[in-house]
C-alpha cells in the first residue's frame, strides 16, 4: 500500500473555504453535510497535490477554472439508469397512468447529474405513449454534467447492467434498440432527448421556475443538512401541482419535514409521495 502524504483540511479551514465560496463566488455550501464535504475536499487536495492550505485557498479564490473543477469534484455525480428497479416499476405502473390524464406532462429532474435518470424516464414515457406530450426539465448545479445530458452519450460498459435494470423494472423491449454503439460509448436515440430541457439550477439559492406534475430529486438531499432539506422540500411543494408526485431517493424521506402533512406516500412504500392537499 502506498503511503499518501497530504495536508488534511481542518474543520476551521473547511469553514474558511465555505465562507470564501459564498462571499467571492456566490456558491452556498454552508448547509451541506460537513462530513461528506470534508472528505470530498481532502480527496481533491490530495489528488491535486496541494502543499498547503493557503495554496489551495488562493487557487480557489483567484482562478475561475479551478472553481469549476472544485464544483465538479465536490458534488457527487454517481448515477445509474433505472437505479432501484422497484422504484421505476412503480413509476411505470402507478405514476404514469395518472400523469397520462394531464394534457401536458411537466417533469422536473432536480440534481439530474449526467442524465441517466432523465433518459430512463424518457424511455418509460415513450413506452407509455406519453413522450410526445411531455417535457422533462433536467437541472443541476454543475454545468459540466448537463453537457452530457444534452449529448445522450453513456459508456458502453454500463449497458449490460442497465439492460438488466430495465428488464427488472418491467421493460419488455430489447434495451439496445434505444441506442447506437460507437466504439466504447453509446448514443441514445435523439427522439428520447428531444423533450429534455436543460438548465443550471442551484437548489440552495434559485427559486421555483414552473409548475410540475412530477418532481424527481433522488440522492441529492442526503448531501444537505436537515434545515436545507426542509427548505428544498418547500421549494418542491411550491413547484408541484395538486395531485402531482414527488419522488425521492431510496434513503430520503418526507418524514418529519414541514410539508409532510400535505402528502401521502404510495402504499407500496416506494419513496414516492402524492400531493393531496393544496
Amino acid at each position, binding site marked *: *500500500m502506498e503511503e499518501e502524504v497530504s495536508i488534511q483540511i481542518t*474543520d476551521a479551514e473547511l469553514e474558511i473555504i465555505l465562507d470564501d465560496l459564498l462571499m467571492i463566488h456566490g456558491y452556498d455550501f454552508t448547509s451541506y*453535510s*460537513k*462530513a*461528506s464535504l*470534508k*472528505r*470530498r475536499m481532502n480527496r481533491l487536495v490530495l489528488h491535486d497535490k496541494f502543499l498547503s492550505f493557503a495554496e489551495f485557498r488562493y487557487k480557489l479564490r483567484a482562478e475561475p477554472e479551478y472553481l469549476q473543477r472544485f464544483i465538479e469534484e465536490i458534488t*457527487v455525480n*454517481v448515477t445509474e439508469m433505472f437505479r432501484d428497479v422497484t422504484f421505476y416499476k412503480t413509476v411505470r405502473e402507478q405514476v404514469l397512468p395518472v400523469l397520462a390524464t394531464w394534457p401536458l406532462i411537466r417533469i422536473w429532474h432536480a440534481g439530474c447529474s449526467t442524465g441517466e435518470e432523465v433518459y430512463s424516464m424518457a424511455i418509460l414515457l415513450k413506452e407509455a405513449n406519453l413522450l410526445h406530450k411531455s417535457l422533462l426539465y433536467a437541472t443541476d448545479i454543475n454545468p459540466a454534467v448537463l453537457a452530457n445530458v444534452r449529448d445522450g452519450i453513456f459508456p458502453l460498459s454500463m449497458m449490460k447492467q442497465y439492460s438488466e435494470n430495465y428488464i427488472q423494472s418491467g421493460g419488455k423491449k430489447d434495451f439496445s434498440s434505444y441506442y447506437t454503439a460507437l466504439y466504447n460509448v453509446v448514443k441514445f436515440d435523439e427522439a428520447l432527448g428531444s423533450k429534455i430541457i436543460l438548465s443550471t439550477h442551484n437548489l440552495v439559492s434559485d427559486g421555483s421556475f414552473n409548475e410540475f406534475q412530477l418532481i424527481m430529486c433522488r*440522492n441529492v438531499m*442526503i*448531501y444537505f*443538512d*436537515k434545515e436545507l*432539506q426542509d427548505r428544498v422540500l418547500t421549494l418542491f411543494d411550491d413547484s408541484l401541482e395538486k395531485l402531482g408526485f414527488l419522488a425521492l*431517493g*431510496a*434513503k*430520503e424521506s418526507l418524514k418529519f419535514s414541514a410539508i409532510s402533512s400535505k402528502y401521502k406516500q404510495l402504499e407500496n412504500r416506494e419513496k414516492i409521495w402524492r400531493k393531496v392537499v393544496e
Partner: protein
Amino acid sequence: MEDKPLLQTTPRLIVIGGSAGSLSMVLKILPHLDVKLQVPVVTVFHRKSSDDTTLIEVLSTRTCFEVSEIEDKAGISPNVFYIAPADYHVLIEKDYTFTLDDSEKINYSRPSIDVTFESAADVYGANLVCILLSGANADGVNGLKIAKQKGGCVIVQDPAFAEVPYMPQQAMTHVTPDYILRPDNVREILAVLGGQPV
C-alpha cells in the same frame, strides 16, 4: 495480550468492519454486548443489497441491543447495533448524527469500511474502537491507520481464525493492533472495553 494496559479512555463508539466470512464472528460478538457499555456499535459489512430485513432479524435474536439499519441524519444512540445500508457510505457528523453518501466505491466497496473508520476517527478520536474482521480485500486498513493516529483503539481478528484471512492479515502488516480477537477471547475483550479488568 495479558500485559496490555486497560484502555486509556472509555469508548464512545465501536465500529466493526467485515467482509467475506465475517458474519460468524459478528454472531459471536453480539451476545456479549452489554447495555452497561452504554455505547453505540456501527457495523459496515460488504454485502449484496435487498437482504436487509433478514439480516436484521438474524442479528436481533443474538443480542439485547436494538438492531437497526442506519438512516440518514439520524442521531447515534447507545445500546443500538447499527448496520450500514447496502450501497451507501456511512459518515459521522460532529453533532453525532449519521450522513449517508452515495459517492464512488472505495476499494470496490460501498459501503466502504475505510470511509466509516476515517470519519468516526475524525469525530471520536481516542474514544473510538475499530474492529476489523475477516475479508478478501484491504478495505478498512487505511481507516485503522488513521484511527490509530488519532489515539483510537484498534482490534483485528486473528487471521488464523478468520474464514478469509486476507483483510486482517493486511491490517496486521500495516498497523499494530491493541488487541487480537479470537473466538475464545471475545468476552474478555468486550469486558475490557467496558472498563472491567480481565
